[in-house]
């Protein structure tokens, strides 16, 4: 009697576990099936750059003259941004190209504002978890893409990990 009650209880637990697992799988499937907004052809994809408030747009880049800012920014870009925007910032199915006139025209302050706030509705997370100087290093690298013609998206000069 006790054994059958235990067995019933175990079956009930297994059934509940299966229901929870199925909920998770279905949620995951629905979320995965949804088209990534960044993957859609959207001419408004760069519009958020114009949404930055005036104070943010006019913010000056404190690392503009720092010779280490571009290579450090390139390293950070490869680590955190290349997964969506491509290794040469050329864009991918997950994120738009950053080698377009809209980005070239944007002020460093506007890029910093986008990086700090993200474009959550269009799938870009905010990167305020990176300290401010690291975000400015990324902005410096992105702005440097406009001024370089020869293979500007080449991987960092030292891909080997230094201890």
């Amino acid at each position, binding site marked *: 009697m006790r054994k059958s009650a235990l067995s019933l209880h175990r079956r009930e637990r297994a059934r509940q576990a299966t229901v929870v697992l199925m909920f998770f799988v279905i*949620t995951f499937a629905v979320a*995965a099936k949804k088209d990534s907004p960044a993957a859609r052809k959207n001419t408004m994809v760069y519009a958020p750059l114009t949404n930055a408030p005036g104070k943010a747009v006019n913010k000056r880049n404190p690392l503009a003259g720092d010779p280490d800012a571009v290579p450090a*920014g390139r390293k950070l870009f490869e680590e955190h941004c290349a997964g969506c925007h491509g290794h040469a910032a050329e864009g991918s199915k997950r994120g738009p190209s950053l080698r377009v006139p809209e980005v070239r025209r944007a002020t460093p302050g506007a890029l910093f504002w986008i990086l700090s706030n993200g474009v959550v509705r269009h799938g870009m997370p905010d990167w305020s978890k990176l300290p401010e100087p690291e975000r400015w290093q990324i902005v410096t690298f992105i702005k440097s893409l406009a001024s370089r013609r020869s293979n500007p998206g080449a991987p960092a000069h030292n891909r080997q990990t230094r201890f």
Partner: protein
Amino acid sequence: MSFIVSITNKLRLQAARPVLRDDAGAAACGPSVSKPRQHLWAAFRAVALFSLGVTVLSGQPLRAQESPYIVTYDHYLEEPGNLDVEYFSTFGTQRGGNAFVAPWVEFEYGATAWWTTEFYLDAQKTFNDSALFTGLRWENRFRPFELEHFVNPVIYVEYEQTSGADKILKEVEGHDVESDYADPNSVLRQEHDHELEFKLLLSKSFKGWNVALNPIATKNVSPNNPWEFGYAIGASRPLALRATPSRCNFCRENFITGVEMYGGLGDADSFGLHDTSHYLAPVVAWNLPSDWTLRLSLGFGLNHDSHRLLLRWGVSREFSGFGEMAREWFGGRR
């Protein structure tokens, strides 16, 4: 150094100490590990090993900037389409019982930039007792606001289906005290909890610092259980705020250190600090350029109702583009 050696020796002694009550409990409740429990434990180990294998062998990893917190949450969600596979373990000392190790596996997926969903599998091994699978959890975090604010809220909702033997101590709430975990597994596992847990994750990053506060409210869905309350607070900062130009393992920017404090606040019937446990834990995360994150937390009990020591460690790896791959499996357009 001598302090660490002395603590290690104490832990060894405690882990090895047999407990008579344990044997009595086991005798009263039959064999310490039943066959189905053994199967569940074996399944947990298989999932943990599989996750580790996938984590090691899969491509498209991404270096994450993971926070060092193990209990506290900041307001940052998983990047959309990324899967974070995480393995954690809690080692706890136990007065009046046996020390334990409670591992858990997490699969954290960024469904969108404002929604992260996470699935947990919990287990534990109590020294001189048994090892068992203790339950599962399904967690969702939602970011209500589009832009960063002075304080950033995230809404956290979790469903837990665990047994009383669950010892991962992912959060401490209500009147959870050390003595609750002293019984042998054969007794503890008779209790089954179905809980809904709500948290408001409040967090702010400023000048490299992150400060986070999480009020917790939990309701066991079985009748006659009051709402239970708890808290977790944390502060952390990278050792360096600027990145170095070259990739390196031991650069200061790869290390984030901090401290977190968590504990219970009683329940709706008896709100307050009496009969509650509280912990203070220095934490550190090492974000390696080879895509791994290692975390370590040394939690000290702050009152007599707390475990003296909770040592936690974790290893995780983040995979970029997992959603794209899954979309193919489920027939979505690329």
